[in-house]
């Protein structure tokens, strides 16, 4: 079920809201849980089992990890009395429990998302003929798997208590506002809210506003620009020229932003209606002046997930006692100095993180290359200090131009079906190639697309960032903003009713 579908908007959402409002406080979680499972089962009922299995694995795994952690503490006390072997033993056991739980989570992800990719590549590489039935990926598996991992790691790190009520853990993993396309809510961010939250009018009003903004972003901007981008990117490469390819790249750049940030806005809004407060997922990424900054502003929940659960642990590996990595690191440091050793370590960590980021987005070489492409620029920026703020306007403009160019070219790779297509597309963008058959620009864009693009560019800057704030605003201003939001909602609803073009890009990941 898509947030921008009629059945969600006009059937599921109002019914769930009324039920949520009507039932007693202690039943609210169950209403949400049932609604979330129904929401997920709507499209693919079979895969509910996979999600439920993930919940059970993580429930049991986290309790196991917590239990071993507790023993560690007891043994830690005995350590003072000199029995340190038991401590090492329990540490390893907790790690093993964590490892096994994560392995369980990732095995589902790998099977459902990457099995086809691996077999196809093995066939291609070794000219093999392994017959296989294509595995269909359950919607949102990448998102809920990462959430589940976040939970069990948080328990291992003792940042949160393990959830002893399986229904509440199930609610965290399946919560429908963020189930299929994020944001990836970390357990420690919402643990308290799952246990105890309140719904008040202010939250509902904010949620409604945020939802409308998200819906309008998705339906009015992303879909309109997406139609242009799709038209360009589905055209054979010999029918594209320089101007058209740039048009396609620009439209796609804004489509993907408004598509995904619109979805995140809707998720945050829905969360607010049900009393949750999810962290922001986007912070005007297109005003960034470096790729490092861009990734601090773009898909923040994913970026911070990789930072917390992958990048930092890798960076801290050399600090561990007597491991192969720490010994190798020290050896390298002796040979080439700490600065170079740090750079190598950063490079290795960035490579792993960005390879994983790319691969997380999709089982395809274009995604992997896109991930490494981003990692490469971040590494270069870190080395050269390019990501530091310039003071002069010219310097800032240059930085901004650089960032947008790199982002846009990266997204061309991201959008292309094959690396070959991406390569020729990029060559055409820079005039190195030109197709034989061309269409006039009017074939791709009309007035409505130009308006959407202009609005898209303007709104990607934080000009209206405080529009939804109500504190200290006059009633008249609030009413004007609300009227505007209402008009946006009606236009979006009209567009949903009329338009059949409604794919959500981030459902692929």
């Amino acid at each position: 079920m898509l947030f921008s579908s009629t059945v969600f908007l006009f059937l599921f959402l109002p019914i769930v809201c009324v039920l949520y409002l009507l039932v007693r406080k202690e039943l609210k979680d169950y209403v949400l849980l049932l609604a979330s499972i129904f929401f997920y089962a709507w499209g693919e009922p079979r895969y509910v089992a996979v999600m439920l299995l993930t919940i059970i694995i993580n429930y049991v795994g986290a309790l196991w990890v917590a239990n071993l952690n507790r023993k560690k503490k007891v043994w830690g006390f005995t350590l003072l009395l000199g029995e340190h072997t038991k401590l090492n033993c329990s540490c390893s056991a907790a790690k093993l429990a964590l490892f096994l739980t994560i392995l369980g989570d990732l095995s589902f992800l790998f099977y459902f998302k990457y099995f086809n990719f691996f077999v196809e590549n093995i066939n291609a590489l070794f000219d093999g003929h392994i017959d296989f039935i294509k595995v269909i990926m359950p919607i949102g598996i990448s998102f809920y798997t990462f959430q589940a991992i976040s939970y069990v790691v948080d328990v291992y790190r003792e940042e949160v208590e393990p959830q002893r009520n399986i229904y509440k853990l199930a609610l965290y993993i399946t919560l429908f506002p963020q189930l299929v396309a994020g944001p990836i809510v970390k357990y420690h961010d919402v643990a308290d809210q799952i246990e105890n939250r309140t719904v008040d009018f202010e939250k509902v009003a904010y949620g409604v506003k945020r939802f409308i903004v998200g819906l309008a972003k998705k339906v009015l901007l992303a879909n309109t620009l997406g139609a242009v981008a799709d038209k360009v990117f589905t055209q054979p490469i010999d029918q594209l020229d320089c101007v058209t390819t740039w048009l396609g790249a620009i439209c796609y750049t804004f489509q993907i932003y408004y598509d995904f940030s619109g979805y995140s806005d809707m998720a945050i809004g829905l969360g607010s209606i049900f009393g949750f407060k999810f962290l922001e997922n986007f912070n005007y990424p297109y005003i960034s002046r470096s790729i490092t900054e861009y990734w601090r502003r773009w898909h923040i929940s994913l970026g911070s997930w990789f930072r917390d659960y992958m990048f930092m642990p890798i960076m801290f590996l050399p600090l561990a006692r007597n491991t192969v990595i720490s010994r190798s690191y020290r050896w390298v440091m002796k040979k080439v100095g700490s600065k170079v050793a740090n750079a190598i370590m950063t490079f290795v960590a960035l490579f792993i993180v960005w390879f994983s980021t790319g691969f997380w987005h999709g089982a395809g070489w274009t995604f992997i290359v896109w991930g490494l492409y981003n990692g490469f620029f971040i590494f270069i920026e870190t080395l050269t200090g390019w990501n530091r703020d310039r003071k002069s306007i010219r310097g800032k403009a240059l930085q901004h131009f650089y960032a947008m160019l790199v982002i846009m070219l990266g997204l061309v790779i991201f959008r292309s079906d094959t690396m070959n297509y991406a390569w020729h597309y990029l060559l055409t963008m820079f005039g190195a190639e030109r197709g034989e058959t061309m269409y006039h620009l009017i074939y791709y864009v009309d007035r409505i697309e130009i308006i959407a693009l202009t609005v898209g560019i303007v709104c990607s800057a934080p000009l209206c960032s405080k529009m939804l704030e109500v504190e200290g605003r006059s009633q008249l201003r609030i009413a004007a903003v609300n009227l505007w939001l209402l008009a946006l909602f009606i236009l979006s609803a009209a567009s949903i009713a009329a338009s059949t073009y409604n794919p959500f890009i981030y459902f692929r990941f």
Partner: protein
Amino acid sequence: MNKKILIAAILTFVVNILCIPLWTECGYGGFVRTLFNKEVRLEFVYSGIVTGSEPFHFQATPEPSLCSWFYHSGNIRRAHLTLQASGKWQKLSVQVEPLHDGKITISFKGPDARDDYGRCYSVLTDWRNSKINGKAVFKESKTLSYQKGESAKISVKKNEILQIEAEFRRHRFTIHDFIFLKHGNLWYLITGNLLTLFLIYRLLSYFAGRRERVRLGDALLVVTFFTCLFIPMIDISDEVKSQRENRTLAEKPTLKGLLKGEANTGGGYERWFNDHFYGRSVLIKLHDIVRNNLSHIIRTRRGSYFKEGGWDFGLPPLVDCGLTSFQAIVDNLVHLDQFCRKNRIKLYILEVPRKEIIYKEFIVDNYGFDEKQFVKVSRAEETIRREVRKHHIPWVYPYEAFRDAARQDFVFLKCSNHWTDWGAFVGYCELMKEINKDFPDMPIVSLNDCRKSQNWLYRDGYRRDYGPPKHLSQFYNFSSSELTSPTDQVLYNYYDHKNGKNMVIEFGKFTKEFTYPEGKHKIMLTGTSQNENFLQFLPYSAARTRYIRLNFGQVKNEDEFKILKLYKKDIFSFKPEILILCIHTDNLPKLRDLCSPK
């Protein structure tokens, strides 16, 4: 608590009052229908002394939609005027001028609402003060349906003007109509009211316990937002077919599928809800108004409508056929030819050129499509023709003739990919040239044999009705007013054979059989709606012509051209001497399944 119940009861009553518009139309089916069909209908049936095959037997202002029904025993011409009604009484004034002496029946009715199988719904409308030439037919308010109309039969003389007056409105639910409730609706009413009462009571309890500061602007937004969310489920329509969209609406899937965990059930419900929720047409209209006012070109997945000029064209054609597909098409045609030869039938293929190819310079100059693409596609299609001709199968592709003809008159309707009568005539002549090589005794109709008339309406469809422009268009989901441009008012030339009275037509479900005593040989024509105009001429060359319309919804779109599988029996029973396969270029890929046994 008592106070809350009292307020809840009052609010429930208010909700009932607000819901009255939903109950303003009801059917005889025994339950209250909440159809929002705001149409009423006035129908004229003219019969009597009819000579020849005059295209119009009466004129009326405002102009009605005309349908012509031919019978062996004579002709009955029928027309209906469909009026948009509202909840208020509106006045109607129509002038009818018969062009012959005869009798005219004037019926005041409800709208003709039908499902996909042609079954009628009963939808009521109110009429009163109806007069014909000042003479009252009925004065008091009458609730009428399509099945139960109020008629007046009058003898008329040629050119005598009839003045019809009446007042009408959408049927308003009255106490009298409560009689229908006893058939089961009472339970709907009671259940609905109890649920409403409970809901309001709970909401009141919920908000009574709150002590928050609520901003008025925000409160209004939240209330309006949630009200808007609830409106579409107020009335899920039970329409089966959308006239406006010219398609069957999605059916409601069974609950069993959902319980069994079938993957498509959710999608099925979604499609069903998408097609049936209340307010859908209003939202679509709103979207169209906004979009059309902002755009120069209105695009759909299938093509583009150009506001300046009023033309629509399909998307630039893209080559979809690989070499294997070419071969499959050729093989299928050869197979069909062998089948025909075995059964002593001569096969002819008539390919209708694409509108976009015929008007390519016009499109390139005005709308910026690239000509090279057309050339590229044309080359690919030419390969198929060449390969088929190598097997001595006559393939008529009247491209040059159409290009020449397009300089004289419209060969295609501006807002449809269908031929005009002139276009059909050109195609007919080209085909007859080829047929005459094998059957020299077959007469060819000339334009002198036809009576010419002009109309801005489109005459097309199975029964050769006249309809407003765009009813055939891919933009049928837009209302005419949104697409109107002055150039839409083109007068097309229509041709009717002067010997129309000698032609006997029998209508089947998706077939038509023509018997013409002055013709020779038996022809079977297979084609799509695109070729309907062809029948203005072809049946006058043959003694008997059987036309099989392939796209009448009898099979799925992709199976339309499985001719041998679907119509072998028809071929054997009719035993034609000539089989004409009339196909539009766009449909060429479908020929891959021409002889498919599955």
